[in-house]
C-alpha cells in the first residue's frame, strides 16, 4: 500500500486489526522536483464504531426487506416537501402496476384506489398528516385489470424536528383473502343464525345457570316469552315442578361432564300458565379452542301428541274396561289367527294370562270339538270380508259365534274380531217363552171355544124353558092336559140339563186351579178302584178289562187321575159293541223321557175327522146317550194341567178306539224321589 502510494497512487482503505477497524488514507504528496524525494501522507482513523453501525444498519435493512418481501408488505415513503412518493417493489404488486407506469405522486396513489373508497382514504390520510389520528385504514384498490383487492394500510409521520412534518412512511398489505374469509364466515354465521331462528324446533343455548341466552322463535312461541325475557330466566322458572328434579339433575351431570347428552319428555309452563308437554334433547357443546361450554337444548312441542296419546289411552282403557265388563268372549285376531287384544272372559275361557296368549294363535287353545268349524268360519271371513254368525256346542253350552272382518285403509281384511256368547240360557228361555206363547195361544183358543160353548150350550136349555113356559100358559088356557104334561116334562128336563152342565163346568174349572198337593199315585191301584166302581156297567155290557203291563207310579193328585181313568173306561164301555167280545186293554209304554199311557177298546170307533172334536166341551157323540159331553174335556184338561198331551186314534167306525195320553217323566221322577 505504501509502495503504491510512494508510486504516486492514493489509497483509501479500511483495515481490520483485531477488533478494530481503521480507515487508512494514504496520499502521495506532490513533488516539486523530479529528484526531490517523494513524501507521502498517511492518515489513520479509528472507524471501528462507525463501521460497526454501518454493518448493523445494513443488516437491519436486509432483515426488514426480507420481512416485508416475504410478508407481501409494501413500503412507501412520501416526502411532504417535494410531494415525491417512493414505492418499493411490493407496492407496485399490491396496486397491480409497475415502476414505469407509476408517476410517484400522491395523486397517483389516490387514483389507484377504488373510487368509492377514495374520499374516505383521503380524509383519513389528511387527519393523519395533521397529527389528529394515526393512519390505520382499510380500502380497496382497483387494478387495471378490474380486479379489486382489499388493502390494509398503516402509516407514520416522521418528524425531523418538533414542528415540521417532512415525511410519511407507511406500509400496505393485501387483506383480500382474510376479508373474503371473514365475509364468508359472516354469511355462514348469518345463515346459521337465520336457520336457528326460524327452525320449527325450539333451540336454545343455555348457560351454566340454566338461562337460555340464545333462544329461537320456536322456543319463544312455545313458552310465550320474548327472547330477552327468556334469556334472563333459568329453565327452572318455567319447568313443571314434577319434572324439575330430573331435568336439573341431568343438566348438572351434563355440566360435570358425566354425560354428553340427555333426552326427556317434560312439562313446561307457558307464560299464560298453560302446561306444555315437550320433548327435550340437551347436548353439551365444547369449543375447539375455548374452555367455554355451551349447552344446546332442543325442544319439541308434543302437547297435541300427548293429548292425543292421553285420549287414545283413555279410549283404549275404556274400550278395555268395556270389553272386560262383558261376560262374552271377545278377541281381535290378525290374519293368522294370532291374538292382538282379548278380554277377561276370553282369558277365563282359555285359562291363561294375557302375556301367555298375546301373539299366539287362539285356535291352538280351542277344544277339538269346535276348532275345525271355527277355523273354517274364520277363513270364510278372510275370503268373503263379510260377518259370519254361527252356533256351536261345547261342554253342553250353546255358543253363538260371530266373526267380524276389520278392514285396513286399503279395504283389505287385516284383522278379525270375534264375539262369542253363551246362549244356552237364552235359548232355553226362548224355547220356554215359545212354549209358553204356544201354550197361552192354545189356552186362549180353548178359552174362546169354552166361552162360545158355554154361551151356546147353556142358552139352549134356557130357550127350551122360555118356549115351553109360553106353550104351558097357552095349554092351560086351552085346558089341553096332554100338552101341559109334555110342556112340564120338557121344562123340567131343561132345568136338569142346565144344572148338570153347571155342575160339570164347576168341576172342570176346579181342575185348572192347580193347588192340590201332589202325592205319590200308583196308577195300578187307581185303575183297580175304577174297575170296582164301574163293575155294574162293565158286567152289563159284558166287557173284559185287560191290564197289559204295569202302570207307573206318579206324583199327582189321586182324585184327578181317578177321574181320568173313570171317564176313559166308562166311555170305552159305553161305546162297546155287542157282537165282538168287548175288550178294553190298559197299559203304558215308556219312551224317551215320558210314559205313553193308553186305553184301547174294540168298540164302535170314530171317524178320523171327528177324533179331535170328541175332546171339546159339551160335545156329545151321541145325543141319545146320557151325560153332558163333558167327560173327555175334563180328562184333557187334567192331562194338560200336568204337562201332558192326549189324543184319540181310530181306524174308523166299528174299528175300536185308543185314547193315548203322555205323562212327562218329571211326574214320574218326583214320584220316585218322594
Amino acid at each position: 500500500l505504501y509502495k503504491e502510494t510512494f508510486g504516486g497512487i492514493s489509497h483509501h482503505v479500511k483495515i481490520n486489526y483485531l477488533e478494530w477497524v481503521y480507515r487508512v488514507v494514504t496520499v502521495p504528496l506532490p513533488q516539486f522536483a523530479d529528484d526531490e524525494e517523494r513524501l507521502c501522507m498517511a492518515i489513520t482513523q479509528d472507524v471501528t464504531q462507525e463501521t460497526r453501525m454501518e454493518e448493523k444498519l445494513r443488516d437491519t435493512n436486509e432483515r426488514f426487506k426480507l420481512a416485508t418481501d416475504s410478508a407481501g408488505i409494501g413500503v412507501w415513503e412520501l416526502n411532504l416537501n417535494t410531494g415525491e412518493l417512493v414505492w418499493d417493489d411490493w407496492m407496485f404488486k399490491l396496486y397491480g402496476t409497475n415502476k414505469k407506469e407509476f408517476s410517484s405522486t400522491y395523486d397517483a396513489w389516490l387514483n389507484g384506489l377504488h373510487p368509492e373508497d377514495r374520499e374516505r382514504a383521503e380524509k383519513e390520510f389528511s387527519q393523519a398528516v395533521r397529527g389528529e389520528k394515526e393512519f390505520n385504514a382499510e380500502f380497496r384498490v382497483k387494478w387495471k385489470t378490474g380486479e379489486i383487492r382489499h388493502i390494509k394500510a398503516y402509516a407514520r409521520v416522521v418528524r425531523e424536528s418538533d414542528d415540521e412534518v417532512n415525511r410519511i412512511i407507511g406500509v400496505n398489505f393485501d387483506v383480500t383473502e382474510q376479508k373474503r374469509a371473514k365475509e364468508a364466515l359472516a354469511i355462514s354465521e348469518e345463515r346459521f343464525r337465520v336457520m336457528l331462528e326460524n327452525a320449527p324446533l325450539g333451540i336454545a343455548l343455555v348457560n351454566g345457570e340454566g338461562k337460555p341466552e340464545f333462544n329461537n322463535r320456536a322456543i319463544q312461541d312455545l313458552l310465550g316469552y320474548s327472547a330477552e325475557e327468556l334469556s334472563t330466566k333459568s329453565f327452572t322458572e318455567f319447568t313443571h315442578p314434577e319434572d324439575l328434579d330430573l331435568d336439573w339433575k341431568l343438566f348438572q351431570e351434563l355440566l360435570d361432564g358425566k354425560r354428553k347428552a340427555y333426552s326427556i319428555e317434560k312439562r313446561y309452563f307457558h307464560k299464560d300458565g298453560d302446561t306444555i308437554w315437550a320433548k327435550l334433547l340437551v347436548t353439551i357443546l365444547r369449543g375447539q379452542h375455548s374452555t367455554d361450554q355451551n349447552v344446546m337444548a332442543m325442544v319439541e312441542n308434543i302437547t297435541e301428541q300427548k293429548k292425543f296419546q292421553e285420549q287414545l289411552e283413555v279410549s283404549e282403557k275404556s274400550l278395555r274396561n268395556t270389553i272386560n265388563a262383558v261376560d262374552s268372549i271377545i278377541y281381535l285376531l290378525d290374519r293368522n289367527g294370532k291374538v292382538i287384544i282379548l278380554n277377561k272372559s276370553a282369558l277365563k275361557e282359555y285359562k291363561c294370562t294375557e302375556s301367555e296368549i298375546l301373539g299366539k294363535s287362539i285356535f291352538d287353545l280351542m277344544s277339538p270339538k269346535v276348532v275345525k268349524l271355527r277355523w273354517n268360519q274364520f277363513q270364510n271371513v278372510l275370503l268373503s270380508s263379510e260377518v259370519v254368525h254361527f252356533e256351536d256346542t261345547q261342554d253342553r253350552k250353546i255358543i253363538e259365534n260371530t266373526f267380524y272382518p276389520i278392514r285396513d285403509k286399503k279395504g283389505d281384511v287385516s284383522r278379525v274380531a270375534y264375539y262369542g256368547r253363551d246362549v244356552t240360557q237364552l235359548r232355553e228361555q226362548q224355547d220356554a217363552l215359545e212354549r209358553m206363547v204356544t201354550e197361552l195361544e192354545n189356552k186362549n183358543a180353548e178359552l174362546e171355544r169354552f166361552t162360545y160353548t158355554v154361551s151356546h150350550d147353556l142358552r139352549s136349555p134356557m130357550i127350551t124353558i122360555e118356549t115351553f113356559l109360553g106353550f104351558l100358559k097357552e095349554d092351560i088356557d086351552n085346558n089341553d092336559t096332554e100338552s101341559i104334561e109334555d110342556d112340564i116334562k120338557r121344562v123340567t128336563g131343561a132345568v136338569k140339563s142346565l144344572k148338570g152342565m153347571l155342575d160339570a163346568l164347576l168341576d172342570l174349572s176346579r181342575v185348572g186351579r192347580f193347588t192340590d198337593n201332589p202325592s205319590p199315585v200308583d196308577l195300578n191301584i187307581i185303575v183297580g178302584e175304577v174297575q170296582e166302581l164301574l163293575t155294574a156297567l162293565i158286567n152289563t155290557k159284558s166287557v173284559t178289562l185287560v191290564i197289559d203291563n204295569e202302570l207307573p207310579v206318579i206324583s199327582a193328585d189321586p182324585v184327578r187321575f181317578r177321574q181320568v181313568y173313570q171317564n176313559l173306561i166308562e166311555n170305552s164301555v159305553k161305546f162297546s159293541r155287542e157282537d165282538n167280545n168287548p175288550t178294553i186293554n190298559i197299559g203304558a209304554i215308556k219312551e224317551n223321557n215320558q210314559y205313553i199311557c193308553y186305553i184301547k177298546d174294540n168298540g164302535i170307533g170314530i171317524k178320523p175327522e171327528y177324533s179331535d172334536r170328541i175332546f171339546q166341551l159339551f160335545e156329545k157323540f151321541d145325543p141319545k146317550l146320557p151325560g153332558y159331553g163333558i167327560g173327555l174335556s175334563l180328562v184333557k184338561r187334567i192331562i194338560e194341567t200336568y204337562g201332558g198331551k192326549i189324543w184319540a186314534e181310530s181306524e174308523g167306525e166299528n174299528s175300536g178306539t185308543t185314547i193315548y195320553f203322555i205323562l212327562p217323566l218329571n211326574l214320574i221322577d218326583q214320584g220316585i224321589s218322594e
Partner: protein
Amino acid sequence: MAEEVKPFEILLIEDNDDHAAAVKRSFRKHRLENHITHLKDGEEAMNYLFRKGEFEDPLKSPRPKVILLDLRLPKLDGLDILKAIKSDDQLKHLPVVVLTSSRTDQDIEKATELHANSFVVKPVSFDKFVKLMDDLGYYWLGYHTSPLG
C-alpha cells in the same frame, strides 16, 4: 088344468129335541107340521142333502123350499153344512136360514161370509117364520090360502 102344487118342504136341521118340538108345535097350528123334515145331526143332514146312505133315494130326500139350520150340531158343524150347501151347484140356490141362540153370536158373521140367506134368533115361532118368508120373497101364506090348497 091346475098346476100340480108342490108341497112346501121345510128342512129343519136341529139336534136339540125340545127346540125341534117347539118349531113343530108352532107350525102344527097352521097344519104345516107334516111339511117339516127334522134331521138331528150334521152327518144325517149331509146324507140327506147329498143323497147318501139311507137318503140315497130322491123320494126320501125331496129338495126343501127352505133350510132351517142350527149351527151347533154333533159330529159335523152347522157351518160345515152351510159351506157344503153353498159350494154345491145344485144346492146353493136353496135359502138357508141360520138358527142362533143369540143376536150377538160371532157365528152370524161366519155364516154371512158363507152366504147364509137369513138368521133367526131362537125360539123359532110361526110368526117369526112368516115374516122371514116375506123377507125372503115367499108369498107362501098366499099359497096356503089359495082355494086349490
